[in-house]
């Protein structure tokens, strides 16, 4: 069975996210406005006002409450949705941990934006990085179509009986949130059909009135350790599940994204650029140009950040001569960018090749074609044995 051809519309990333949520029929939605996410909350309210979506919408008084509302509703049995960004994401931090600990299958959009310190209303992945140890699955997407498709896939992932974990879908604020591009909107019946397998699973535990059910019980000693262990195991299972769901989505809708990572011209590549989000699109253009110059470069687009796709990355990078990692955030306390730091943990399995860290694209500064071109050249030089710089803050070098 194949899905019907959907309607093609030119929409911003935020409007696409709201449409994707609508198509998944969440029963309870709570969101608090924050730039650059506000359109998502507004559009969902408009859908309800126009009778296009039958959901309980709670106009909460802050993000912390947004996460509590959807977490509790999820624990009661509801399908839920919320969206946030930056300061909002970190304002819900206690509940972010709670939601994961409760194994509540919340699906949340996080429109990536810089975080407090220096006030910044601009793009960057620091918000997602600041919450990477919260026990959520974190996925980063590249374009508006992928926003649509990944939100639908995320319900299949979050509510899977073997997973039961919250999923955060990340897309670049400004670059995607306000960018209008052509997107295929799947038919409602096709989204229903794709989510249908969830109805055939065993029911997950719920808090039911009058039935002596509870959630958030004090976990003492071994009870706590066991819950943590099972949570950790479930997050490990996310890796293969993301690949499976991506494959099933591809078979039904005709679009797939590689699952945990997307590889582009990597098979015969000597050197690899690792990037994520909207920068991956730019990187593809650079890879093509470099190939024409005879440089055997490939791209790995990191889609799944939590859990970290260890096995797939080892497979993709084994035998390569050097890697350059572009991070759109800072890893305070380590020299390298966050994704680079984590990639370096795989070094024993991928061999002692040069791994070059690049910090770029903070605070709405573009990750440009010349930037990525420079990365490829430097990684290529490192691969041929030349000395290299461990970490490069690209914008600082351009000052």
């Amino acid at each position, binding site marked *: 069975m194949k899905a019907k051809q959907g309607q093609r519309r030119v929409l911003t990333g935020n409007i696409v996210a709201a449409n994707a949520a609508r198509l998944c029929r969440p*029963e*309870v939605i*709570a969101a608090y406005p924050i730039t650059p996410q506000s359109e998502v909350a507004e559009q969902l309210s408009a859908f309800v006002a126009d009778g296009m979506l039958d959901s*309980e919408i*709670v*106009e*909460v*008084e*802050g993000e*912390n*409450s*947004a*996460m*509590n*509302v*959807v*977490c*509790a*509703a*999820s*624990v*009661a*049995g*509801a399908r*839920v949705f919320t969206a946030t960004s930056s300061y909002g994401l970190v304002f819900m931090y*206690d*509940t972010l941990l*709670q939601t994961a600990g409760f194994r509540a299958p919340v699906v949340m959009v996080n429109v990536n934006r810089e975080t407090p310190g220096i006030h910044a209303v601009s793009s960057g992945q620091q918000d997602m990085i600041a919450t990477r140890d919260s026990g959520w699955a974190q996925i980063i997407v590249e374009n508006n179509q992928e926003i649509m498709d990944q939100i639908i896939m995320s319900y299949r992932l979050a509510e899977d009986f073997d997973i039961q974990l919250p999923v955060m879908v990340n897309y670049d604020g400004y670059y995607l949130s306000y960018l209008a591009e052509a997107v295929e909107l799947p038919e409602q019946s096709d989204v229903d059909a794709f989510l249908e397998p969830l109805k055939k699973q065993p029911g997950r535990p719920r*808090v*039911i*009135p*009058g*039935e*002596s*059910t*509870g*959630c*958030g*019980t*004090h976990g*003492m000693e071994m009870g706590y350790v066991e819950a943590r262990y099972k949570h950790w195991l479930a997050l490990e299972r996310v890796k293969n599940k993301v690949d499976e769901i991506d494959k099933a989505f591809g078979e039904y809708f005709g679009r797939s994204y590689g699952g945990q990572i997307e590889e582009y011209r990597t098979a015969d590549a000597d050197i690899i650029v690792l990037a994520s989000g909207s920068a991956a699109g730019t990187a593809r253009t650079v890879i093509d140009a470099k190939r024409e110059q005879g440089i055997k470069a490939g791209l790995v687009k990191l889609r799944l950040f939590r859990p970290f796709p260890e096995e797939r990355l080892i497979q993709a990078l084994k035998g390569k001569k050097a890697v350059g990692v572009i991070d759109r955030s800072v890893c305070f306390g380590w020299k390298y960018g966050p994704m680079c730091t984590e990639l370096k943990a795989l070094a024993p399995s991928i061999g002692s090749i040069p791994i070059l860290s690049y910090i770029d694209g903070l605070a709405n500064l573009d990750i440009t074609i010349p930037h990525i071109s420079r990365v490829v050249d430097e990684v290529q030089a490192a691969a041929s044995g030349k000395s290299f710089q461990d970490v490069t803050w690209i914008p600082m070098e351009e000052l």
Partner: protein
Amino acid sequence: MTEATKKKSKIFDYFCEEEQFSGGVAWCAGCPLELTARFVPKILGKNMVFVGTPSCSAPVLHGQNIGAWHKLSYLACVMTGVASSATGLSRYYRRTGQDATVVCFTGDGCATDIGFQPLSGAAERNEHIIYLTYDNEGYMNTGNQRSSATPKGASTTTTPVGKVGRGKPTTAKNMPLVMLMHQPRYLATATLSHLEDFAKKLVKAKEMAKEGFVYLHVFSPCPVGWRIDSNLVIEVCRTAVRTNYFPLWEAENGKPHLTVEVASPKPITEFTKLMRKFSHLKEDGIAELQQTLNDRYDLLKKLCDGNK
């Protein structure tokens, strides 16, 4: 006559459910919280869902004390999330037609401090929940630290009395009035010394929560933190009412009236002498405490009278 106002012969006549708690629950000796937690579900029924947070009630309500427990459904969430979690539960139960009374059960620290924002938000959105604050005037579970419900002059572990320190330097947030200004569907104050008054208010609360937000403020002295003899706790509740330190009143849609009017209120010293948290106060400190409660009672009385 509504169900709530009908006169019943005995307090047992208000009960619609059997005891929901097992024996052996682990609250401090003499703590009114145990009686309150046992009493509330007997009237609200077994379809009530407790929403709580780390606090004095947590060890029993959320299963830390695993030797004894209760039969009610519950959700134990973070301190910032009580009213908002209750919102999530209530919205979904109502949407799916499940019969439930969602009851937030928290101390004054959660209600007046860290959980105030979601409480205020839920009241403003008129969520169909009951928010019950058991007010022991401080963070008693963590060892008697001050909260914004701690009265002026009270000695706590974070406002200690010393060479310079004279107890808490500022007056307590007048939480019932703060909540009255939200014009909830129903609001009431209650305490265990006036059990039938409390029972009627719970019956009413259950009815009103079907229409909107309900706030209950329950005076709940802490024998350990306030240093009260454990056999005197109910007497402290009674004296709080008779001195007008804790007036008993209720309000529908923001229109208050007294449910227990004290003909000749006793001086505050009758109340303060029962505990040691005010024992360092000199005449001026006591006079100030008396003045504060007089002012607050006058304001409440004006609101009630303006409503007649």
